[in-house]
């Protein structure tokens, strides 16, 4: 692919999200077209982010500056990026599949009459992109037709950009003054602290919807109690049901954990959950569905009903000791 490529930098509160560099690596793998990084922001934060991007990647940076760009706003981003790229031109626009990325990409694609492909995990030789469906049970290859294309890159699928470039790219800072008309981004609220003692836990036993009911949490707690330093985790689904509080949630919008042993009980293995626990030492998964995606990252897989298996496990443990 040698069409011009643009990477949209994503940042929160003056910090470039590391996934931005993964999108740069993706673009490098994708083709040899002229590359530009676009970053939008305000004040001195913008210049330091622009310099950081050009130094770390060696790619030219276009930085767009306005007071109202201190916070992300899809309406502004769409208008400004369309202005830079131009309508109808063949171009490839890449960004990470983070909250700002999936917010922006489809809307931008409509404005540019572009194809939009989200959550890309791999590139195939015929220039198709691979993405997962059905909770990771199926892989689909899809190829954009002629014309511009907007792509979002699944976090973790590419390594960050770490081979230091010989020279920095150029940095162009441009001002704009066309505040958004129908939307106003007001502020970013900090998250509520949710320390569950996960960092001290050697073993985390986590519950998914597959446990079937809040009462069955007893099994999860009994299993966790076997280990001297343990904690109970959960999927978002379990927290949504009110079976456990959100502070137990593990995943991209919850806690990130990496205990020595992670025991996943009745968890399907959605990517959003996996990204919060994939670096655990040993992963043990218990699920009735032998095709569940959790088994693809588990070290040990047990196809059983958790609610009958855990009591048996506890019985056998008592028998042994």
């Amino acid at each position, binding site marked *: 692919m040698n069409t011009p490529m643009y990477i949209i930098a994503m940042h929160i509160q003056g910090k470039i999200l590391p996934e931005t560099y993964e999108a740069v690596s993706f673009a490098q793998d994708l083709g040899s077209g002229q590359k530009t990084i676009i970053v939008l922001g305000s004040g001195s934060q913008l210049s330091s982010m622009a310099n950081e991007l050009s130094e770390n990647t060696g790619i030219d940076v276009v930085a767009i500056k306005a007071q109202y760009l201190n916070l992300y706003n899809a309406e502004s981003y769409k208008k400004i990026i369309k202005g830079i790229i131009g309508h109808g031109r063949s171009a490839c626009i890449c960004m990470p599949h983070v909250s700002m990325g999936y917010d922006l990409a*489809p809307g931008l694609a409509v404005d540019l009459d572009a194809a939009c492909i989200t959550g890309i995990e791999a590139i195939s030789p015929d220039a198709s992109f691979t993405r997962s469906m059905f909770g990771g049970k199926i892989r689909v290859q899809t190829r954009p037709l002629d014309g511009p294309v907007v792509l979002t890159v699944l976090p973790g699928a590419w390594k960050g950009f770490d081979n230091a470039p010989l020279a920095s790219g150029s940095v162009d800072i441009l001002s704009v003054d066309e505040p958004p008309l129908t939307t106003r981004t007001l502020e970013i609220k900090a998250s509520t602290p949710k320390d569950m003692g996960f960092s001290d836990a050697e073993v985390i036993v986590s519950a998914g919807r597959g446990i079937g009911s809040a009462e069955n949490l007893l099994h999860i707690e009994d299993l966790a109690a076997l280990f001297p330093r343990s904690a109970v985790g959960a999927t978002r689904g379990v927290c949504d049901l009110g079976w456990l509080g959100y502070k137990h949630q593990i995943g991209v919008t919850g806690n990130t954990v990496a205990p020595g042993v992670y025991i996943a009980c009745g968890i399907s293995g959605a990517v959003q959950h996996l990204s919060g626990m994939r670096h655990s030492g040993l992963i043990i998964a218990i699920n009735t569905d032998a*095709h569940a995606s959790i*088994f693809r990252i588990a070290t040990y897989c047990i196809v059983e009903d958790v609610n009958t298996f855990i009591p048996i496990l506890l019985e056998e*443990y008592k028998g042994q000791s």
Partner: protein
Amino acid sequence: MPYHVYMKSHVARGVRILVCVKQVLDSAETVSIDETATDETATWIRFEPGTVFRMNRFDEFAVQEALRIRESIPGSVIDALSLGPDRVKKTILKALEMGADNGVHIPVETKKYILPYMRASMIAEYAQNRHYDLILTGIMAEDDMECQVGQLLAGILGLPYATSVIYQDIEANKGTIYVEKEIEEGRRECMDIDLPALITVQSGINTPGYPSLSNVLRARGQQIEVMEPSRCADRMDREVITGVSYPSAGVSGTFIDGSPQEKANALLDILHKNAVL
């Protein structure tokens, strides 16, 4: 219609809400690739008779949020829409049982995967000129995991939007909606958006309730509006599916075999060896 006129009229009549509900395969179901596909039908998924489908969970939260808005603004009306083959009528019925006022079906009988842009275009075709004040979708469909149709629909209709909404406070008399979006590390991005607008709902925004008996009975007798065949054509597609496959074998872990007791003992051994027991 000038904007201020639009605002005055909708305060008097409550807000008109469209909520999009997708029918998906249950996460515990086996997914089989259709090996009998030909060039014309394109390879996609084969659904055996008896396969369990249900409403996309994120869309349950969207329906529930629509109900909450209707509760707070008397006179509001909720239309629940689903696009797909005849079986999606069951999901529309579920939305009616939860309390939506009207059901809309966009019939599409195809064995192919319907791409997000096509789905959004067809939904836009229905929504255009129907003067919705607010359109709600889920953040993502659990089956195709695109995170696209809401934003595409907003783009096609020229509406402002917000994704991953975890809290909303609609101020119909001001013609705005305040939203909090869930972003990285549990932070929330707060926005004010002019109506009409579209929001994509994140799970946890509310607690979907069980349908009441009276709603279930009312829903049963209710007609579902069926949209005329869409004028959108395949040539609108901007991408083509070139392959469908199972994830490569051999990247999974070791399956522990035997009776439940044998598996339990094998697992205890592993835990001992790793010195956590």
